[in-house]
């Protein structure tokens, strides 16, 4: 068994990928909207924050508070860290290896 940090949970992958898709970081509502647009899943915003916090402790993402300058509200912006990108890559490779089988045809798998 490798280090537990090498593996991402399903919801962690979803949140981390959505954050990565936003490019220059994003906050909870943006991540929620991205997941909804990309997957159709209407996830819980508090659950997104709980997951981001857990991943922050693991060093996969980082956060900063952006204070409003010309009005608006304060935002907690999350960014994917290098360790987060590596974790996503590892997860992808893991699944690709698992899918790489003559018995599994993604187009025909039931």
């Amino acid at each position, binding site marked *: 068994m490798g280090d537990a940090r090498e593996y991402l949970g399903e919801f962690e992958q979803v949140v981390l990928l959505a954050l990565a898709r936003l490019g220059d970081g994003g906050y909870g509502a943006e991540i929620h909207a991205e997941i909804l647009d990309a997957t159709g899943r209407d996830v819980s915003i*508090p659950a997104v924050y709980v997951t981001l916090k857990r991943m922050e402790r693991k060093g996969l993402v980082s956060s900063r508070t952006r204070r409003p300058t010309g009005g608006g509200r304060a*935002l907690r912006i999350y960014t994917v860290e290098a360790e987060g990108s590596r974790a996503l890559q590892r997860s992808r490779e893991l699944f690709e290896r698992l899918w790489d089988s003559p018995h599994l045809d993604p187009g025909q798998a039931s």
Partner: protein
Amino acid sequence: MSPRSPCLARAILRALTPREDRPFVLADLDERFERVRLDGGPRSARWWYRRQALVSTPVLVANRAAELARGLRAGEIRRIVRALLRRPQYAAGVAGTLALGFASAMVLGGLAWQVWLQPLPLPDSERLVRVYELEPVAADGERVRFPVSPPFLDALRAREWRHFTGFAGILGSSPEWVVDGDTRHLTGAIVSPGFFEVLGITPLHGRAEFRGRDGEAGAEVVLTEEFWVRAFGGDPGVVGGTVHLASGPHTVVGVVPQNGEYPETVDLFTPLLWASHQLAAGFRGARYVEAVGRVAPGSDIDVASDELATFVAGLGEAWPDSHVDWSAEVVSLRADLVRPFRPALRLLLAAGFAFLALSVVNVFGLSMARALERSRESAVRIALGASRARLARGALVEGAALGLAGGIAALVLARILTAVSVGWLPATMPRTTDLGASPLEAAAWLGCAVVGGAVMVALARRLVPPADTPMSGARVSRDLVGGRAIVVGQFALTTLLVGVGTLAIERSVELAHRDLGYRVDGVWVGLVALPQTANPDSNGRRDAWSSLLRELESGGYAAAISTNPPMARTNNRFDYRRSAEDEQKFGQYAIVSHGYFDLMEIPFVEGRTFTRGDSTPSVIISETLAEEVYPGESPLGLTLSILQQDREIVGVVGSAAHFGPDRPAPPMMYASYEAENWAFSRLVVAGGDAVVGAVEEAMNRAIPGAAPVSMVPYERHVSEWFRPLRIQLGIVGALAVVGGLLASLGLYSAIAFQVRGRMPELGIRMALGATGASIAGRVVRGGLSLAGIGLAGGFMLWWLGRRALSEAMGASASGVSATSVGATALTILGLALAAVAIPARRAAEADPLETFRGD
């Protein structure tokens, strides 16, 4: 203006989201809420928000728990436990109060559930019913229900029913087992064919049915599993073998399991097979067999009752003497078993959960006092860098530890109380063999205590903020208003309970000293049933009774018979009237022998008693009847019509409290057994313990073949009569003790909270010259005034309920008395004084220097 998100959902999310994330999470939710509103309208936006709350709640709760577990360190737990040990009064107060409340709910709630609500452990038990015969509605509106007669049961069993699948009968018995020359007394039941089938009891070995014909009625026996294991070591070979009962050898035909609830615990069953004369018309009025039935699948009790009512109406036409205007009642067996205890069980259930609620409130009060005491310490810890989350964690751990201690104490206490209550409960209360919580239930109660303790202590800490200045007097007063109201309510409830308790004690003492109108000490009584050999006709029965009395009298015993002696649970209600034109009235009818009045010391008012050989259809009446029917004149020589038959009145005797000391003496009519006699009667004998042996010998000589007679001291009947009152007293007493303890703890916590909050003020008062005694006096007065208001409220409740209390305690009882009011007031004020003593002493020790240091 855009619509707002749903309040409740928002409040839940606000409460559960970690403080540091809260503004961002709520703002993000608002942003998305607005987007959904623009896309789908306000309705779908609100639904969306509610769904967010619903889906997020478990995630957020789990996150909180994980945060708490992460934040705990062994050192911190040790520190919290040490802090608790430094405040043993507080720790013991919280744990003890929780223990009291949870133990009350466990024992009282468990008892009510087990006895009252749980289905019987028999297949499809909700379809099992009992059948009663209901006598015609009398002029006084009373309608007494009776067991059924042998012919009635026989007719029930013989008929094809649409809404019943079957009926069976059962009678209690006391068989004697002869083994190795010794005679052992067993508990038995005589059951009709089909009894086990109706109940759905299948045998463990052999068969659960009797095949003996009339002539072999006593030749078969079915053992219960418990007796089979106890007496025969569970040997299956016993089936087919023989057991020797006093009445002769019996073949064991089967072994059946015993559920301990219904039928009541017995050792063995023997068959109830009627002799032909017992099914004749003359026995239709002999209603003494317990009938059970099973309602057919798809029918309900109401529909089945209608079918039975039609059947009984037909009996009235066929047998007008014994059935006209009679009806029948079908009641659920489970409900009927607990019917006499239902009011008490309802009261216990309510009391159990009321005490649990009161204990929770008191724990909260104690926690508030403790939180106030620690508010300055909390401020110092925050100043030194401790986070609020850490303080909250500490409060949760402290509360959980106290909850755990209280929960364990509650389990132990509940076990002790259950063990005690099993012996104290009336033997007639069914389903009390398996009281006590199962391991799963105990774990659930313990979990509730832990969570409850944690939540209450944490909530109290949250409501009392850490502060470097004491709370203002106004704040303390405001917080106290709710606490005071609860304390007042608790004292009102306790006043009511103590009041009812003292009233019940007073009533017991009064009844125990009331003149019954007859003698009970040194008198024995037992039911004698003449066997068929001694029961061919009226003359045969008279000779058998005479022979029995002669045998006893020749042995030096004063003996008599009565078919209806007082307080023996007999009820022979006959109608009477002075003449055919008069209104029909009802009284108790007894057939007695000549020495009955002397033996029972029932005094003669006028006229004469029955003499030996007196076979005229005369009657002796009681004083009550004489005053009612012949006011102002002597009834001697006049006639009284009993069951439409004229009898000459030859004597008047004193009135007897036939149904117990609390009921008015009914009109009594006594007839001589030499003029009229029944096959059943109570034998009454004066003497000591030797009476039992003497009766056995006399029975063997005078009435060979008769069933053994179980003679019991008459005082036992009186004691049995007092049992419900003693139970009532015990219940109220136990409730009053728990209520008193909780009320005292409530007062203690409220006053302690108040004193803690006012310590700076008290310090200033001391600096200005107030003495410790004067300050302690103020605190005591404050506490007593709360208790006093509660006392007044309790008295008011008592006064309002005095009529109901009077009815509950007996028609002639008073619902309130000066003695009980005085005793209650003293008890309540004593409790209040004990509760305020500690806070008053603490207040008297207020230090002015501490106040100025704090400022």
